[in-house]
């Protein structure tokens, strides 16, 4: 075909990559950054986690069973929710169900469009397509959601007086929170929109790099990357919107008063 073959990495070659860890480790040791332990632990985890996922994916691709794929995606959604809502000390007592619902719904909506309408693999549920695509969507919308959520809480916390002033006129929680909600959505979507601007100019995206190293024609890899970029933008937008719309009400009492205990930072 195009004469490009994937160059396999042998065990010996893989072992050589530890040189890179030594390089990073000596920087840490030399400057006493105190990162050595985490670096070594991280290296071990990278090896173990990726080897395990490599075997798992091989198994899953061969199995290619819709219920298994579905279950795996749900587990991925749950892990992503946990990561997105845990990272921020800014957001105390966040109900994970809302995060899970927003992430899962946006991922399935956008993933469904990409797999069912655009890529159309045979069979439609092909694990080799569905798992990586949904994974990419999740990884990115997770970050967007974490940013939106964080901003929603910090905006609310720094505008309590304004929000209560609007409420005291007779504003609904939506009217009182409209500006805060806009800010939260902007915060979640801006990094993705920025990445649309500079993609290919500053760095080649990981997926495209992977396809090229794997022997794909760069012109084909680019087509995939375009789909991926746009699907990420869509998933982030839908996920953030759902999350923010479902969460802001949670900051109010049943009688539509701002519940300031919900936004207090834990000491």
């Amino acid at each position, binding site marked *: 075909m195009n004469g490009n073959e994937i160059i396999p990495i042998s065990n010996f070659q893989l072992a050589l990559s530890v040189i890179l860890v030594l390089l990073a480790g000596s920087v840490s040791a030399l400057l006493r950054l105190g990162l050595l332990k985490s670096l070594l632990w991280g290296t071990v985890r990278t090896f173990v986690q990726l080897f395990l996922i490599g075997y798992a994916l091989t198994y899953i691709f061969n199995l290619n069973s819709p219920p298994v794929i579905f279950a795996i995606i749900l587990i991925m959604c749950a892990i992503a929710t946990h990561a997105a809502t845990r990272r921020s000390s800014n957001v105390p007592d966040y109900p994970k169900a809302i995060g899970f619902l927003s992430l899962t719904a946006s991922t399935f909506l956008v993933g469904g469009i990409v797999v069912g309408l655009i890529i159309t693999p045979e069979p439609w549920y092909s694990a080799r397509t569905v798992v990586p695509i949904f994974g990419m969507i999740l990884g990115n919308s997770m970050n967007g959601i974490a940013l939106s959520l964080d901003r929603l809480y910090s905006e609310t916390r720094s505008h309590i*007086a304004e929000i209560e002033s*609007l409420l005291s*006129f*007779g504003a*609904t929680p939506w009217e009182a929170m409209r500006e805060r909600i806009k800010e939260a959505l902007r915060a979640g979507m801006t990094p993705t929109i920025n990445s649309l601007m500079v993609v290919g100019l500053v760095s080649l995206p990981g997926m495209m790099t992977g396809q090229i190293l794997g022997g794909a024609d760069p012109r084909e890899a680019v087509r995939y990357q375009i789909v991926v970029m746009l699907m990420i933008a869509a998933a982030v937008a839908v996920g953030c919107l759902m999350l923010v719309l479902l969460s802001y009400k949670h900051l109010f*009492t049943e009688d539509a008063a*701002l519940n300031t205990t919900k936004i207090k930072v834990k000491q």
Partner: protein
Amino acid sequence: MKYLIELQNLSFQTGGAGPAITVSAGLPAGSVLFISGPSGVGKTTLLRTISRLHGSISGEVYLDGQSWASYSVFQWRRLVHYFPQKPVLFSGTVRDNLTIPFTVARVSKDVVLNHDRAKRLLTLLLPGKSPEQDASTLSGGESSRLALIRALLIEPAVLLLDEPTAHLDRKTGTLVLQALAGWLNEQPRRGIIMVSHGNDAAQLVEMGASTDILNLGGRGKGAWDK
């Protein structure tokens, strides 16, 4: 009906875990009820509870003989309007700050912005200030007077004022009280519940308003306590 607004065994809690306080009081139309008591006893929380910005534990508040449960919370907050000690100005001009409540659906449905009254109140309380002036250039005292004009324009029935003259010099304080006394007499069914440490009560009496005291946390009891 005897009272414009009546608190019936209204029970609330200050902060997260303070002791529950229960009050009963009634305010006849056209008069001012002062809330007194040592600081930290829950005077501000009481005002916030009456306007439904803070949850009550039990009890009810009646406006014109109707329980607060029969009003939508949004209508209630406009009618029984809480005015904080440090009111907020929004970014924009003086005029923007006066019109912002009218961007709220509930307000624009119930009230028409009275431009004449806005002008009159501006001349009285903020003489020499243009509606086009940037609100962020106003001093603290000027800001709170602008916010007071804004509160009067949404035509509440009962104003809940939290130390409205605390940060004003004597002269402007008197000016604010005059505006309040004028507002009270302008229409028959209006009332004010006020937290105040100064001699606002004495001044309002001098201006011809009928006043009473509700004592929170102290031993004395006001006449409206039942």
